[in-house]
């Protein structure tokens, strides 16, 4: 077990290394940050001076090795734009993104599982069709548009919730709802199909025959088994959830890491972009690993080698 975890963590490091090479090259192709960092009035000499200051005059492989050496010693460099240490900038913003991601995930689960189960239990009825329509609609709706609609309805018209920012728990509601829309349709459809399959199984029939009550039947017997694929899918969709934070944080001015990354990419702020990408890649790999561990816990048939 410990050996398995160590092996997976080593793989995670290799993945991060590969990703760092790709981002490094892609950013280099995107353009010259020195040109963006000086105002338009600056002379060519000023641009050259800045390029030397930032070490951008060195060959690409050398720059990559310096960058890698820095990371190994815990130094992710300084933001070209604000001069702050890149790691500190990203770590400051990460809690906000995690808060949003967890709230979005939690909301998606809390809504998807009961509605999905309901649809399965009342298969073919108006309930079932209603939730399916909701799932399809949710999948088709662009999150950007959904976020703005939520703002217009709940903040501008009804004045129930704040428009944007992160000052109080109320500020979390609309962004979490928007982010949940990324996962909700998938989870709801998955729960429904899983429950339909499980409810047709022999052991459920046996339990029913024994006179087990409806609630116990669903919670103790059916849902327990439905959990396994749901956990797997949540783990796999974690990357998608983080992708969703980009749109959500932008629309709701949520001060998270995705918001920071968007601006850093616009400014070609290499150190910040690199740090965000590496940390996010690492966290996705770790979440996938955790998913595998949890599934092994839930499903006695799975053994980790």
């Amino acid at each position, binding site marked *: 077990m410990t050996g398995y975890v160590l092996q997976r963590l080593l793989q995670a490091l290799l993945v991060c290394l590969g990703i760092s090479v790709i981002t490094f090259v892609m950013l280099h192709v*995107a*353009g*010259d*940050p020195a*040109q*963006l*960092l*000086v*105002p*338009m*009035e*600056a*002379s*060519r000499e*000023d*641009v050259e*001076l*800045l390029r030397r*200051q930032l070490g951008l005059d060195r060959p690409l492989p050398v720059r990559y090795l310096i960058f890698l050496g820095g990371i190994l010693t815990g130094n992710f460099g300084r933001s070209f*734009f*604000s*001069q*702050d240490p890149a790691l500190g*900038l990203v770590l*400051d*913003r990460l809690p906000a993104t995690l808060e949003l991601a967890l709230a979005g995930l939690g909301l998606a689960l809390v809504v998807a599982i009961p509605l999905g189960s309901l649809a399965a239990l009342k298969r073919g009825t108006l309930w079932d069709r209603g939730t399916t329509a909701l799932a399809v609609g949710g999948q088709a709706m662009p999150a950007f548009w959904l976020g*703005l609609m939520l*703002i*217009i309805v709940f*903040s*501008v018209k009804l*004045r129930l919730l*704040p*428009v*944007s*920012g*992160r000052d109080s728990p109320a500020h979390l509601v609309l962004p979490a709802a928007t982010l949940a829309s990324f996962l909700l349709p998938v989870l709801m459809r998955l729960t429904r199909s899983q429950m339909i399959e499980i409810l047709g199984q022999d052991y459920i029939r046996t339990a029913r025959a024994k006179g087990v009550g409806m609630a116990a039947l669903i919670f103790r017997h059916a849902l327990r088994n439905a959990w396994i694929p749901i956990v797997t899918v949540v783990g796999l969709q974690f990357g998608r959830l983080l992708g969703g934070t980009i749109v959500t944080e*932008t*629309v*709701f*001015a949520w*001060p998270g890491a995705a*918001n*920071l990354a*968007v*601006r850093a990419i*616009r*400014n*070609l702020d290499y150190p910040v972009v690199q740090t965000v990408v590496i940390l996010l890649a690492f966290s996705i790999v770790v979440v996938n690993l955790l998913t595998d561990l949890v599934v092994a816990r839930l499903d006695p048939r799975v053994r980790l080698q």
Partner: protein
Amino acid sequence: MRRGTLNLAIGIALALLTGTAVAEPRGRITVAIDSDVQSLDPMAVSDRFTQAVLWHVFDSLLYRDPQKGTLLPGLARSWRAVNPTTWELKLHEGVRFHTGEPASAEAAKFSLERMAGPKVPRRYEVGSVARVEVVDPLTVRVVTKRADPILLESLVNVQIVPPRYLREVGEERFGRAPSGTGPYRVTEWVKGQRLILEANQDHWRGSKPVPAIKTVLLRPIPEKATQIAELLSGGVDMIINVPPDQIPVITASGRARVTTAATLRTSFLQLNVSRAGSPALQNPKVRQAINHAIDGDAIHKNLMGGLGHRTGSINPFQFGYDPAVRPYPYDPARARQLLREAGYAGGLELRLVSYSGTMVNPELAAQAIADYLTKVGIRVKHRHVEDLALLAKIWLGAQDVDLMYASWASRGIFDADAIMRPLFGSGERYAYVADPQIHKWLDEARFSMDAAARKVIYSRILRHIHDQAHWVPLYTSFVTYGVSNRIHYEAPTDENLRLFDVTWRERP
């Protein structure tokens, strides 16, 4: 007893002079900003908007009238040219930084020298300065390498920092918790979330008024639609650069209004004459044809709402502007004839690039230009770029581009040099035209202290560029603020935010 009475009388008189004339700052407003400020150290900043925010915290030696653009005293109460390369500036007495340190000639010298440092992105503002001398605690002399007629304009952009405090806390901390002499001081900065400014009760009251607003909260909100929703729901009191199609939404809301002002920014079509553009553009007849083909009046009226000014050269606000240099009249028949004479009767193809920046409706305006050119037989391949990095690559590299729909803000400098030099000067990054005649005249005007002579030279340059049809000047831009009904604010002409000019319409 008599002394006591006298003191009392003086006290009352002072109270009447200051206390009644100036109301205490009160209440709090929230201003939405597109992205967070870069740093709070003026010498670490390249971003134009951050510079404007720092005007609230710092003062420069000189200040600019927000409506007229003329120079006003800043920390310097007077100035004179000792000789063509030496300016002497006398500072106000008793002005102190927020930390108590005096704003002395020493601080001015320190700041100008720090501004010239190799790491400073805007070091060109003091590029002409040879040295700075302290004559006495309130007198400073700025000696330039050559005569510099726009030195004073540049000094408006150089904010004065406290040397002692800066050395004490170090550059990094100064960038987070600065001390200036301005009407506001920084009380809190949570990066990416909020910057809070508090009115400085001990402000020395120079050309900037005493603020009416006690607390200002600047909040980064990247999405314009969200900013508008905040304005309409009362979450923020001011948004900057309202998209023109959203102006009616704000006006109709009954909760906020829109204020606009023509700015120093000028929009034009740049022609890639000298940097590997289409060979056709080397022919003046083709360039003249392009000028005749585009109906600048119509674009100005229909896409810019007639705001800002139509121009045939540079911005009318700038020294050196010559109203006699008019835009080419819209004349498609003449354009077609010129193209025939140039040997392009069968038409030609040009690549046009536009980008999303501080301009209004850039993509639509560029499309309109493309349509006008197509009508006279110039096929246009139009490409609109959103990404700034890609734009820099295209624009600076002059790659794959013959025509660039662009604009220039002249870094707040009301002088022809601030736009003519970057676009037509020798070795400039954004210049698409290399004309030795223009280079020579630009240098003559740049280093002359004779205002009348400079005016004549700029007229000559503008006329020459017009006759050669080196570009297509279009119109000047405008800035639009969405302002809640709680406050009063008039948009200034240089794109710089001035929250100390905001006053209350309602009691907070």
